[in-house]
């Protein structure tokens, strides 16, 4: 019963975190509508980078996987990326028939909330919209681990909810992964536990507003000192995101495919606790660095 209560609290927290992001995401669609093509991509790119970094983080906290026996773990993961100053602006070019064409540094989605206006011919003006003035982008997701069969466990992330917003609709995240114990093939005296695995995730918002796909594959190592377990991981991450919206200028649907990002990713973390409750914190060094912390309840 106590575990059930903990699960409900954790699910509630994840729901809350996702729902709080929805009004902001809806506003992004309005901001984007002033842009087409390259401007829209430049405006959104930092958020896409952070989203990819977050999704490909926090999906393990130990390299130890039992060889056999039924094991489960319900986990809540909070991942966050801190934006650098470079992410605040992008090189934006006037559009909409504005003359003369000009290119300036304009706020990205995470940049200053102040719009940037440039003067044109005959008293005309062109204004680039402001950003959300964000220091960080964080998200919380629930995940379940189930194992073990011959040193293999499954990792499942799932979240789906209708936020009741007619403009946004449904939010869903599905992640499927597997990890396999390498340690079972090594000398039992080998100083660390080793595992390898992959995870694929798909995030959708609305019928076709945002669709993101993330994939990571890599190896992990950890060593258990009783109630504390340092861990590290090296992986190769891939992430792509597409956004569909209606342009104010053309009145037509626009679809942008943000640059697919691939990067090598080093994770350094530490888990603290004793089963059934383990907390962890980690820092992820990649093209967009991020951090994660979480809580796992299971046996």
């Amino acid at each position, binding site marked *: 019963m106590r575990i059930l209560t903990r699960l409900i609290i954790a699910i509630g*927290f994840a729901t809350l975190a996702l729902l709080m992001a929805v009004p902001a995401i809806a506003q992004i669609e309005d901001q984007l509508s002033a842009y087409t093509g390259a401007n829209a991509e430049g405006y959104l790119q930092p958020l896409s980078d952070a989203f990819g970094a977050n999704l490909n983080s926090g999906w393990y906290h130990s390299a130890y996987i039992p060889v056999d026996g039924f094991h489960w773990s319900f986990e809540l993961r909070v991942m966050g990326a801190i934006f650098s100053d470079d992410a605040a602006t992008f090189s934006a070019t006037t559009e909409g028939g504005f003359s003369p064409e000009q290119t300036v540094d304009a706020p990205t989605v995470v940049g200053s909330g102040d719009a940037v206006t440039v003067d044109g011919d005959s008293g005309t003006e062109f204004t680039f919209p402001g950003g959300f003035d964000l220091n960080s982008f964080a998200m919380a997701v629930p995940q379940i681990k189930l194992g073990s069969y011959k040193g293999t466990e499954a990792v499942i992330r799932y979240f789906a909810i209708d936020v009741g917003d007619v403009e946004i609709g449904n939010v869903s995240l599905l992640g499927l992964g597997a990890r396999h114990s390498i340690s079972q093939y090594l000398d039992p005296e080998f100083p660390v536990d080793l595992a390898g695995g992959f995870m694929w995730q798909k995030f959708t918002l609305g019928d076709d507003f945002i669709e993101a796909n993330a994939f990571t594959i890599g190896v992990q190592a950890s060593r258990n000192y009783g109630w504390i377990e340092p861990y590290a991981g090296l992986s190769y991450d891939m992430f792509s995101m597409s956004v569909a919206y209606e342009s104010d200028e053309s009145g037509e649907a626009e679809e942008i495919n943000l640059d697919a990002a691939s990067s090598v990713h080093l994770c350094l973390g530490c888990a603290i*606790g004793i089963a059934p*409750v383990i*907390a962890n914190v980690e820092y992820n060094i990649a093209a967009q660095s991020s951090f994660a912390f979480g809580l796992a309840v299971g046996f």
Partner: protein
Amino acid sequence: MKTRFLVPLLLLLVAFALSGSNCLLDEKVLEIVYFQKTCVDFEENEDSEVFTTPATMDYADELDDVLSNNEISKSDVNSARIVSASYMVTDFSHTHDWDITGEITVRRVDTAGAAVTLVTYTGQSVLAALNNSVPAILDPAGVELLNDALEDYITDAADPVIEFSVENGNVNPNPSVTNMLVFDWRGCVAIHIVAGISLEVPDPF
């Protein structure tokens, strides 16, 4: 040992979740830009190269609709300015092309103001503009009049009504009763409406 870790962790998470509005959400003020095109249609059926075709637009009504559709109020609007203008022939079915030269003027009807030039067009092929949006050469006087009208709307100083008028001066070849110049065209003015909104967004770190 287990309880020592478990209790603070759960308390931390619950407190984090329950105090979400203070801890996770941060109020941000951002300027949003709405791109709006307002268009007027002109129908030409002329037997002379010199003709005038007026069309009136209730700018206040147009802008009211923009704000309403985007669920913002007039008090949220920081500025509204002309970005560009264009024109396009929407219907033309002659056996030969025409080149037209003239201007489109604007006049404040609500203040009974004088007409000033907004757009000039010189040797414009009607056929070349068929279903093709042509960037217009703008005149500062017309842009200033429209920018002032937008300012009056934002500040509630007036509900601007604008008369757009085609003042054509030359056509090649010259139209006549037996060779009428017949086409429909549309002139559009693009506006950026900049509004400031306040929004609570997750920015926990």
